[in-house]
């Protein structure tokens, strides 16, 4: 028996994807001969080194939304590249990890090709990408199962289910989350085997950092976010457990940068403080081998985050990604963010004082945004340009607000007057009463981007945001 686990394109990232390494750790601990590779990154590298620059965008559009204007030979060569990489390990079982919905199209064709080339290999798919939301009954997995393109799919945490399934393949019904919409959250994240990146080609990553899971779920319930559809309960690891993992990775790989994949690193304040103390102590003793981290992070009021916390954070953080989401306090509170503008300025001032770089996330065109709040946002950039570049190293305005299934906004769409124009495209919605339409949001996005840049901030944007906005224009 040999299990091959891989990520599935397309995820626009410069860092190793965590899931295959995490699952490998779990499977190896159960005695399963396992290889874990990051085909997502390998494919991005393959395309960049094989095709012309413009092909990258066309191929990405195909794999994102199935755009039909493409050179099918190039698509086929990408699929064949992946399948050949997988089969080069001569696996008996292949597990495909779909990080988001943007992995669906590649998954479909990889499964098809695998079935053709190696019909004896068992194919398992899993990850948040197989569903629109984990509550959704409609999913690509069920379709592929009916078509016999796959053997199994796993819903929810694969940590336990995947090794269970491989070991109990003849009785898949006994394994939680297999070929079923029902699943159980892993009861405890502590003392689990650490992710094993040893099969990844580390030369491919521009941002050489290792992914860490410190928690699952979120302590907030933001109206636009569907995280609670995935993990209903907030779970966290102890500071000591996380710290031991960081040391273990350093010993194995000499990598000193770590990227927490959590929704937020500081959900559990007690463990977070302990972790900061452990890292500060380590970094003080090992000045040439300091361990640094980046993560999503929530701002809190001063009463919850006194200055000493910021001093400790500064000893190891290399970037906090902060979901400010709206400059306007009322809009932010409507979202479910629980910090005032005074709290926000306190946190930015602390970050500036202790040189903690921040990546600021904003959502353009929330459901309660108006022309007035839009203007207020643009004015804020001008009035607060002293925050660029310290502590605000970069700002991301995203691809405007999408109304995702499984979110509070989706559930309350009638009450809020949200008219969804296309159930399959989350960004095509309008609120007539406030003239909040796709074209208005695109205008706000362009104007806020310009205002942000003019004030001296570095505005970053991922390709997928461009694709989203192009689709909104159609």
């Amino acid at each position, binding site marked *: 028996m040999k299990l091959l686990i891989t990520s599935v394109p397309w995820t626009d990232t410069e860092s190793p994807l965590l899931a295959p390494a995490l699952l490998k750790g779990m499977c190896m601990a159960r005695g399963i001969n396992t290889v874990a590779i990051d085909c997502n990154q390998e494919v991005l590298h393959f395309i960049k080194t094989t095709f012309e620059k413009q092909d990258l965008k066309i191929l990405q559009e195909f794999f994102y939304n*199935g755009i*039909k204007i493409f050179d*099918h*030979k190039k*698509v*086929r060569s990408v*699929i064949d590249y992946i399948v050949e990489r997988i089969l080069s390990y001569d696996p008996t079982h292949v597990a495909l990890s779909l990080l988001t919905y943007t992995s669906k199209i590649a998954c479909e*064709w990889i499964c*098809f*090709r695998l*079935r*053709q080339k190696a019909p004896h290999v068992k194919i398992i798919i899993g990850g948040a990408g197989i569903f629109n939301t984990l509550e959704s009954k409609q999913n690509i997995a069920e379709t592929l199962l009916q*078509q*016999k*393109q796959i053997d199994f799919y796993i819903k929810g945490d694969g940590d336990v289910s995947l090794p269970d399934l491989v070991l109990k393949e003849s009785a898949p019904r006994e394994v939680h989350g297999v070929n079923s919409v029902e699943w159980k959250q892993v009861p405890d994240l502590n003392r689990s085997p650490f992710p094993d990146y040893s099969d990844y080609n580390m030369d491919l990553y521009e941002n050489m950092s290792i992914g860490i899971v410190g928690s699952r779920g979120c302590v907030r319930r933001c109206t636009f976010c569907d995280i609670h559809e995935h993990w209903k309960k907030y779970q966290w690891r102890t500071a000591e457990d996380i710290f031991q993992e960081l040391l273990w990775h350093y010993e194995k790989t000499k990598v000193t940068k770590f990227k927490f994949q959590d929704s937020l690193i500081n959900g559990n304040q007690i463990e977070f403080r302990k972790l900061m103390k452990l890292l500060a102590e380590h970094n003080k003793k090992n000045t040439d081998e300091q361990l640094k981290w980046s993560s999503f992070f929530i701002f809190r009021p001063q009463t919850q985050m006194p200055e000493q916390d910021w001093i400790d954070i500064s000893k190891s953080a290399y970037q906090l990604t902060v979901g400010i989401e709206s400059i306007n306090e009322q809009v932010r509170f409507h979202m479910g963010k629980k910090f005032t503008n005074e709290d926000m300025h306190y946190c930015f001032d602390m970050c500036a004082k202790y040189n903690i770089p921040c990546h600021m996330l904003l959502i353009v065109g929330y459901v309660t945004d108006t022309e007035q709040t839009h203007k207020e946002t643009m004015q804020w950039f001008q009035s607060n340009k002293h925050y660029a570049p310290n502590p605000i190293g970069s700002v991301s305005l995203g691809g405007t607000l999408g109304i995702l299934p499984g979110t509070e906004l989706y559930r309350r769409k009638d009450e809020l007057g949200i008219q969804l124009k296309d159930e399959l495209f989350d960004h095509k919605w309008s609120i007539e009463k406030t003239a909040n339409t796709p074209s208005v949001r695109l205008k706000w996005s362009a104007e806020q981007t310009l205002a942000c840049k003019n004030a001296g901030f570095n505005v970053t944007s991922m390709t997928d945001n461009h694709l989203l906005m192009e689709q909104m224009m159609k």
Partner: protein
Amino acid sequence: MINLLLHLEVGESNGVMNLTIVDHHDKIYWSDKLSEGKNVVELDVDTPNKLVFNLSGKNNRRDTILDKSTGKILKDKFIKITSVEINGKPLNKNVVAKMFVLHTESKEQINSSFWGFNGSVDFDLPYADALDLHLTNLE
């Protein structure tokens, strides 16, 4: 070589239509009798290739029975392709609905997957590889 599965719905009226499937080398892939209702035709086809579906046995005057007062068809002899699978994977239904052209005996061309006249339908399979055939038939 690909595995082709054709899901057909067959209408009966004084019997059913005859279907033979040949390729451009005159190799006969199918000449069996169909039955009323749902039929599945499974073929292993050498590719690239062009299949020709020959349809016969229909008398339009006799086999299409209309309700004279409303003009509605009460009974008909026809073959409708409801789904096409290549190596176990169905082509998009909208593509299937548009991909066939029936050349009738009276030299008409009807772009439909519903075949209610005698004639022939070409089914072009221009690539050897099943993946190519799928990728070139996305909607």
